[in-house]
């Protein structure tokens, strides 16, 4: 009996080790070690002019924080993130509310509104390059036909009177991001709406509540946990977003739309200053610490709750 138990135990340990080792190795090699070595690299001189890798303390950080460009990038990123999150959440929320209750062709509309979320980035850039172009843009065409503007607008090249965090090219990119991400919000809110019991609404109807009152006193409070997750996640994603901003404007015109990730990319792979780029990466992680901490706490809490059930 004891021999059997012993065999069982060693079998268990062998099984456990075999299954858990690959994931630990992968995490270490591809995420944890790179992050730590990036942290180390941020204190070193490692650029195309000087690949020595000698330790220079906080010089990279001082260099970044004393640079005007960095603070402009930060302002641009903050404004881009804030506006994008508001836009996605607003459209997605309205879409979910409309498509939850009985509407004609509900299924078809739901399917249509998932497509932007699924479309690949390179294709999105092909489409929006055309929409925002100057001469052959359908957007300009509509505006001209209805006499809203007199001249064609160069959407992604508009310079105006100087940089502001709310310049036109950046707003155009916000619209693109809103277009990509509202389906995500819609799907999340829809699954939230399904979790609200119908009895609540029926009781409210009996009590003579109006639609607006139902929205404010039943729907919004019940959706709060879902909205918190949506907004936190969107914030984290938008803050580090890269694809379409890189593809559509490359940070231009004159750096008007340069956001954090573009700045890092430019420093690392166009100016080849790897030390400084690593320092920028660390600064980005620090900026994302609070929302990530909040999100992870939420996730762990709900995982535990689920297990207890």
């Amino acid at each position, binding site marked *: 009996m004891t021999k059997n138990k012993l065999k069982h135990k060693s079998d268990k340990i062998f*099984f*456990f080790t075999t*299954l*858990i080792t*690959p*994931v630990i190795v*992968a*995490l270490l*090699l*591809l995420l*944890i070690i*790179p*992050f730590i*070595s*990036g942290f180390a690299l941020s204190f070193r001189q490692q650029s195309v002019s000087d690949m020595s890798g000698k330790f220079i303390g906080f010089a990279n950080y001082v260099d970044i924080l004393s640079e005007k460009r960095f603070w402009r990038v930060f302002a641009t990123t903050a404004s881009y993130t804030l506006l994008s999150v508001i836009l996605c959440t607003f459209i997605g929320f309205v879409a979910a509310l*409309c498509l939850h209750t009985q*509407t*004609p062709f509900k299924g078809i509309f739901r399917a*249509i*509104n*998932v*497509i932007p*979320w*699924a*479309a*690949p*980035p*390179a*294709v999105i850039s*092909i*489409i929006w390059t*055309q929409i925002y172009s100057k001469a*052959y843009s359908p957007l300009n065409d509509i505006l001209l036909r209805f006499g809203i503007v007199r001249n064609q607008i160069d959407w992604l090249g508009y310079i105006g009177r100087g940089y502001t965090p709310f310049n036109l090219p950046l707003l155009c990119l916000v619209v693109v991001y809103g*277009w990509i991400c*509202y389906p*995500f919000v819609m799907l*999340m809110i829809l*699954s939230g709406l399904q979790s609200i019991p119908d009895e609540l609404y029926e009781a409210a109807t009996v009590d003579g509540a109006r639609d607006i009152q139902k929205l404010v006193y039943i729907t919004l409070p019940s959706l709060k946990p879902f909205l918190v997750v949506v907004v936190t996640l969107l914030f984290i994603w938008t803050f*580090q977003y*890269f*694809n379409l901003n*890189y*593809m*559509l*404007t*490359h940070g231009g015109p004159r750096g008007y739309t340069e956001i954090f*990730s573009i700045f890092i*990319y430019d420093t*690392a792979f166009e100016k080849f200053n*790897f030390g400084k780029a690593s320092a920028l*990466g*660390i600064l980005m*992680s620090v900026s994302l610490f609070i929302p*990530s901490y909040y*999100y*992870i706490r939420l*996730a762990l809490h*709900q*995982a535990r709750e*689920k297990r207890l059930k």
Partner: protein
Amino acid sequence: MTLKQSNRIKTFIKLVIVLLFSSFGLFPFIWLFLTSLKPYSILYKLPLKWFDKAMNFSNYLNMLKEVPVFRHLFITFIVGIFVAILAVTISTGAGYILSHFNFRGNFFLTLMLLISQMLPQIVIMVPLYFLLLQLGLVNNLVGLVVVYTGMAIPFSTLMLRSYIETAYSKNLEDSARVDGCTYFQIYFHITVPLCMPGIAAVALFAFMIIYEEFMWANVLITRNSIKTIQSALYSFFGIYSSGTSGGIASAAGFVVTIPTIILAFFLQRYLVTGLTAGAVKE
């Protein structure tokens, strides 16, 4: 105003709003399709024409001649399949352990997975690029597979953990153990077959993420002949490559979108749970 009338008005207003945002969502694709049907001669003529008698499918034929879209699609499929199989193999095991074993590192490992899921790829890109450069894996599809597998593991493990947790009753395992099955036998003969729908969905989801990945592909592969589809499309039709016709670009874009729409259709449920793995109750 009777109740019926007011309900009808409400439905009408709702329908108007639905049409409004649905056309915002769909219009760009309609424009893409229209552009893909316009030959060069009418595409760049002002005033802009939305429809024209001369519209045809010539751009699609020219695309086949001028741009090796299918070659790059093939490369992307190979990379995606490798990554999906690798990531799912590793993640199923890890997900099983995380959901069935109570050990001291369980919480810590889950925490690590969540952190790596939140960590911006661009932050680890510089050091990882350096590492791959030393290993000779830059401009090499193996390097891309390795990076993508690391990217896919956190969300696949979290998704599979919660799937395996509820896929079947634990009594099944207990009775198998009483009958003398080893842990490996239980895993391969009970867990894996019973969790196959979840495993397949996660594999497809990982494939879709890889299919749409651009940043790493753009940095790691600079040789034109082995680019994956997103960075290939970008290098053919991006802002720095004027000269190619917008019609051909749109035709290629339309072809490349089709697989993702099919995938999204199958994965509707997972489009959200995959990305929020762990944080939302189902």
